[in-house]
């Protein structure tokens, strides 16, 4: 009896300590008080059914608090919210914040070697934390994975994933799936061999490592040259968090570009670069793969979010995974087996004329041939893609994808490749801007039909591209941010801007919405940074000062 009472007491203690269970994670999105996963639910739809803030009330949306993050490197993270506490990361720190007051509860700073940014191609930042069983998890720029006590911020374990001096770095938000903590890696611009790691969330012990490039003798390695070691330095980063289908027990993780970008030293498809891997979270076993861009010569990558939804395809419900790939095509795959359902261009594309639905392969044009022949070539979309990492949202209410897309071609040329040097750039390309016609958009905010890639609406951007994720809500709104600092709400049906607030720096992060005490809050991080800052710093510097902070909004009471 005493033992039973003790067991009951410890169960109660666990509940009080706020132990996030696997069921909590699986049901993320259903309890709107919490945001426990990257993408606001394992499906990464970035959709909330909340409707208190809607087309009518949004005019009363006002800031309720702002907290400085004391960081000039840029803010990209998605906040996690659990039981009234918000967890936010950047490259320099992890911060726990009281949602009700905006006051800092704890802060853990990180100190990586000053020269680490040498091996960080695309922004000294961090995409966010994961939470599970009373612990907060994150990755570090110098390629460690760390667990903190969610209540106190005390470090519980810290495990090294790789050596930063060899070009490996970490900015990805971890995923907890079926009890395993999963992280990816960055560094394909430095000739790494990419991987996805599974960790024991309790101890930080590595449970498995799945290299994104198979070793000699493993299936897939035959798509690399036999007479050189290109596969060992072939890239294949994995720097955006995968999505997860608990019913199929499959994690969908996008894999990055091959290295070097110039392709002459690596003939073959180069699996599993520029592909999606469907992985068993317990073991890291690959259930299926689909390659978007075989022998990627364009840094097209496939790291971005795989958005999971149930779509009606030709009268039949299908469990799909969708990706607005950087190569300009919008892919819809059957997520149970990887079968290609649809692949339609959603932006200007000149390197391929389409995707062969029988083989699933792009049909390359003379433009592609010219690039492979090492000629300077006008190339659409550019290596930065028709959409970059800035995540799209999917609203089950409208059945549409909402995305910030890029409209950019470049004069692109492969250079002669030179020998690999550990920790140094491994790209060998020239990428120069094209003359732009006056008034030609640099990007769009748009609503896209997943199966036809037709645009329900399209709002052109003429000065700066948007590099912030989208958030769709049941209130018929789409939230996103601008590099010039405006946090905005659009009408999900028309794209008309209904509301804006000027934050103190540029926005290139991921807005979220949640409730506390029945009140709907919207939060976004402001702080110019990330890849766009890397490529447009000179244009932005006189207009947009750096400086990270967290902004939280709610409706002004009547």
């Amino acid at each position, binding site marked *: 009896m005493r033992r039973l009472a003790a067991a009951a007491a410890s169960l109660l203690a666990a509940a009080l300590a706020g132990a996030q269970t696997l069921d909590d994670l699986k049901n993320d999105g259903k309890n709107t008080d919490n945001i426990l996963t990257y993408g606001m639910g394992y499906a990464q739809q970035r959709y909330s059914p909340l409707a208190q803030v809607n087309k009518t009330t949004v005019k009363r949306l006002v800031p309720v608090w702002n907290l400085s993050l004391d960081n000039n490197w840029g803010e990209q993270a998605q906040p996690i919210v659990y039981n009234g506490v918000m967890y936010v990361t950047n490259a320099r720190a992890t911060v726990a914040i009281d949602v009700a007051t905006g006051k800092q509860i704890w802060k853990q700073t990180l100190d990586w070697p000053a*020269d*680490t940014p*040498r091996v960080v191609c695309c922004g000294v930042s961090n995409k966010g934390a994961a939470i599970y069983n009373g612990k907060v998890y994150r990755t570090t720029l110098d390629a460690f994975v760390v667990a903190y006590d969610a209540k106190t911020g005390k470090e519980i374990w810290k495990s090294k994933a790789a050596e930063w001096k060899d070009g490996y770095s970490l900015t990805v938000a971890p995923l907890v799936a079926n009890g395993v903590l999963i992280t990816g890696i960055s560094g394909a611009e430095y000739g790494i061999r990419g991987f996805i790691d599974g960790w024991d969330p309790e101890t930080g012990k590595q449970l498995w490592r799945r290299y994104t490039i198979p070793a000699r003798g493993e299936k897939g390695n035959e798509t690399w040259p036999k007479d050189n070691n290109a596969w060992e330095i072939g890239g294949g980063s994995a720097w955006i968090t995968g999505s997860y289908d608990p019913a199929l027990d499959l994690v969908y993780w996008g894999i990055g570009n091959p290295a070097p970008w110039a392709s002459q030293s690596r003939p073959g498809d180069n699996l599993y670069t520029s592909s999606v891997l469907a992985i068993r979270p317990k073991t890291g076993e690959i259930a299926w793969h689909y390659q978007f861009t075989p022998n990627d010569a364009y840094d097209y990558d496939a790291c971005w979010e795989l958005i999971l939804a149930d779509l009606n395809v030709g009268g039949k419900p299908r469990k799909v995974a969708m990706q607005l790939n950087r190569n300009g095509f919008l892919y819809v795959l059957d997520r149970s087996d990887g079968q290609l359902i649809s692949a339609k261009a959603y932006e200007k594309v000149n390197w391929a004329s389409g995707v062969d639905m029988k083989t699933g392969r792009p049909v390359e044009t003379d433009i592609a041939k010219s690039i492979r022949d090492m000629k300077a070539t006008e190339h659409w979309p550019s290596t930065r893609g028709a959409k970059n990492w800035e995540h799209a949202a999917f609203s089950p209410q409208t059945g549409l994808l909402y995305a910030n897309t890029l409209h950019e071609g470049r004069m692109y040329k492969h250079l002669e490749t030179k020998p690999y040097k550990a920790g*140094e750039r491994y790209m060998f390309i020239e990428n120069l801007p094209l003359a732009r016609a006056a008034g030609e958009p640099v990007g769009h905010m748009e609503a896209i039909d997943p199966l036809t890639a037709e645009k329900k609406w399209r709002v052109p951007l003429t000065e700066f591209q948007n590099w912030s994720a989208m958030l769709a809500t049941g209130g018929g709104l789409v939230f996103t941010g601008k590099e010039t600092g405006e946090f905005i709400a659009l009408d999900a049906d028309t794209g008309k801007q209904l509301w804006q607030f000027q934050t103190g720096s540029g926005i290139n992060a991921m807005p979220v919405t949640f409730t506390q005490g029945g009140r709907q809050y919207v939060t976004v991080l402001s702080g110019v940074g990330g890849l766009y800052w890397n490529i*447009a710093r*000179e244009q932005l510097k006189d207009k947009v000062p750096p400086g990270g902070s967290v902004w939280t909004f709610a409706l002004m009471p009547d």
Partner: protein
Amino acid sequence: MAQDAQKLKAGAEIYERNCSPCHGARMMDPQGASDLRKFPHDQRERFLNSVTKGKNQMPPWGGLLKPEDVEALWVYVVNAESVYGH
């Protein structure tokens, strides 16, 4: 003169691999970092110091590049105009 030509070539190679991603191919597309075509040619010490120790968002390169590499980069930066005609 031959030594300078050698330095220029070495500097161009280091630039192409490590610097062009931010400062632009052949210094022609400096969208991500300062326009090195405008770097004052009489401020060699400042250049060597900034590259070696880092400045603003540029990391220190002293851990990777030897002093003679940084010197070669300087030769490249001040002579790029004559090489590329810009």
